């Protein structure tokens, strides 16, 4: 007699638009320039990192300043797979996810003892420790870093096919492959987070965010939930890190564990866009990319503008740009509200 629905008109429209976008995205390399593909690669990987950080902080309440640990360890594991084990780089990316998982377990064990600001600093210290330890791994270049050997980069799985398909040079084929992988990753991560929110766990996350005490009292295991969120985010962050550095083909501890690149900018994206929503990071990454393209050649002025925008948004739109938009328009592109449909129920919202 009663039915549960989450469908809204905006949601259906979004779903169709997203599907079209994904298909267009897949076909894009046929028409787009390499520059566009690379820009999109950057946007997609940053978006993935942002969605993952949003999952942690926005949904899980875990404000980590140490996500660069997982980017870095994922990237290094990928390099190790290629250089030391002779794996094909595409498979070695998976090793990056595994390594991130292995690092995430002791990290969570330690960091979950800490609260709030302590948690933030604690995760940062762990990332530093990881960086310093990796910097002692002489086989992978220590503090110097290392590059992917050319036989590896020229033999990446699938590039031959892409070359044949689009008639492009090897380097361009590599870009296209990396772009597709980034597209896959962002779709899986964003879709996964959306699915998570619409699953039982999504309710649990929302409940814990609203009131931990009450959440426990209806049987939600807040502790397990934190673990789950942290580990999922770590693994996917590790995969993303591996993919990013596959594209760069060169790694060093400072680059792979850069707190500014992989955490500070990511926080910037999420918070400017609007934390706790799927739309927020998307808006944020667009703002970030536009700023970067428009201003990056102005050196320090670019960074100063970035800093000032961060301050201004926090002062005048603390819920981020998407918060501003959805407060005005009531728009939710990714609806998660479960509505009860049936007799005697008021319209409500």
């Amino acid at each position, binding site marked *: 007699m009663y039915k549960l629905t989450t469908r809204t008109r905006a949601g259906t429209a979004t779903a169709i638009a997203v599907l079209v976008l994904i298909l267009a995205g897949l076909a894009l390399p046929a028409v787009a*320039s*390499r*520059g566009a593909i*690379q820009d999109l690669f*950057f946007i997609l990987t940053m978006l993935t990192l942002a969605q993952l950080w949003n999952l942690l902080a926005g949904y899980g309440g875990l404000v980590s300043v140490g996500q660069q640990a997982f980017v870095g360890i994922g990237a290094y594991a990928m390099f190790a797979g*290629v*250089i*030391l084990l002779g794996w094909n780089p595409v498979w070695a990316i998976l090793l990056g996810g595994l390594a991130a998982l292995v690092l995430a377990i002791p990290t969570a064990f330690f960091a979950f003892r800490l609260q709030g600001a302590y948690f933030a600093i604690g995760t940062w210290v762990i990332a530093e420790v990881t960086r*310093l330890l990796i*910097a*002692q791994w*002489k*086989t*992978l*270049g*220590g*503090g*110097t*870093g*290392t*590059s*992917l*050997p*050319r036989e*590896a*980069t020229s033999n990446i799985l699938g590039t031959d096919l892409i070359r044949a398909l689009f008639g492009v*040079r*090897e*380097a361009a084929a*590599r*870009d296209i492959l990396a772009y597709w992988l980034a597209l896959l990753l962002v779709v899986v991560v964003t879709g996964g987070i959306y699915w998570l929110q619409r699953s039982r766990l999504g309710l649990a996350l929302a409940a814990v965010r609203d009131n931990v005490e009450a959440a426990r009292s209806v049987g939600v295991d807040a502790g397990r939930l934190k673990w789950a969120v942290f580990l999922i985010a770590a693994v996917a962050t590790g995969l993303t890190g591996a993919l990013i550095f596959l594209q*760069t*083909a*060169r790694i*060093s501890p*400072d*680059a792979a564990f*850069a707190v*500014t*690149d992989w955490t500070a900018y990511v926080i910037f994206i999420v918070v400017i866009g609007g934390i706790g929503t799927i739309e927020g990071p998307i808006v944020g990454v667009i703002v970030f990319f536009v700023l970067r393209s428009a201003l*990056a*050649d102005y*050196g*320090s002025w670019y*960074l100063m503008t970035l800093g000032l925008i961060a301050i201004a948004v926090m002062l005048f739109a603390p819920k981020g740009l998407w918060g501003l938009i959805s407060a005005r328009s009531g728009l939710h592109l990714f609806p998660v509200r479960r509505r009860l449909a049936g007799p005697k129920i008021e319209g409500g919202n």
Partner: protein
Amino acid sequence: QGAKIRLGYVSPQTGPLAGFAESDAYNIKAFLASEAGKNFEVIVKDSQSNPNRAAEVAKSLIVDDEINLMLVGSTPENTNPVATTCEAEGVPVISTMAPWQPWFIGQQGNPGDPASWKPFEFAYHYFWGLEDIIAVYTGMWKQLDTNGKVGGLFPNDADGNAWGDPKNGLKPGLDAAGFSLTDPGRYQNLSDDFTAQVNAFKAANVEIVTGVVIPPDFTTFWNQARQQGFKPKAVTVAKAILFPQSVETLGDAGNNLSSEVWWSASHPFKSTLTGQSSAELAADYTAKSGRPWTQPIGFVHSLFEVAANVMGRVSDPTKAEAIAEAIAATDMTTVVGKVAWNGAGVPPFAAKNVCKTPLVGGQWRKKDSGFDLVIVENASAPEIPAAGKMEALV
């Protein structure tokens, strides 16, 4: 002719390495104004002293700006990501201002396994190597009366690992020249305490300190050494005292510190672009910028000399392979000396991609205001005149 030749240039214009880039604008202006520069367009990108960013902007120069040739300099942190990117992209790159070992070996997948090292197709580098450092440094030290015991300060970065490497770094060469090296181990840049090193040097009765140290760390070390009563006879380090501003920050304690010199106002070479001598180039820069000359000025200048020379000879400036061929065939004398990838003085594995420029040794002498860099050792490049003798610190 039609379209101009596009040169990409990645440079750390902001961030801690910005000192290397301070003459960029001056040199590029001079290049474009010169006869040879007319056919060129130079697109400069700021790496923000960040290796991630360096790789990124290199990519964007290649893909978006479709440059014909990449130029890069200013420490391995900047040259290596750019060179790696170019090599992977199949775009020729001329690189400088990094000793060739961290540049060449540092770009190999497994730096620890020489058997796996491979030459590059598109990446070419000119500067000097650690064997030259060894020759110059030992030449300077031999002018003094010491016990031959040397202490090394090598950080865990691209330079430090190359210099400190027990097989390919300074150690074997110093041994061969009759010096013994005490190396307490790699430290992290921006360490706040060097007691461990001072103690190790004292224990080993060290009289000479060497290394490749960033300026703040050197100041910290040198202050602590003096505070803890460690008084070496010579301190010969790279990087830390490269710029006169860094030496000035040491005050009196900067007097007679020594370092290798790769370019100076007294180098007897002329620019192929402007016809200026080294001295004129230095004086002109100072006149236009109000700042003292520094070693990178000559090398930034020379990058454009080489680029102009290569592109002048190339059969088809749009073909990467043709440009690489032209680079390999270079034989010219720039404001920093002879540049020719003929394999002279370079081990076989790197002979194709590395060419060496002359290196001498100098010592900072305090004058009324500021410091002078006086060349005190030129045995391996006698064409560069020496202006004094090495003096002991104590």
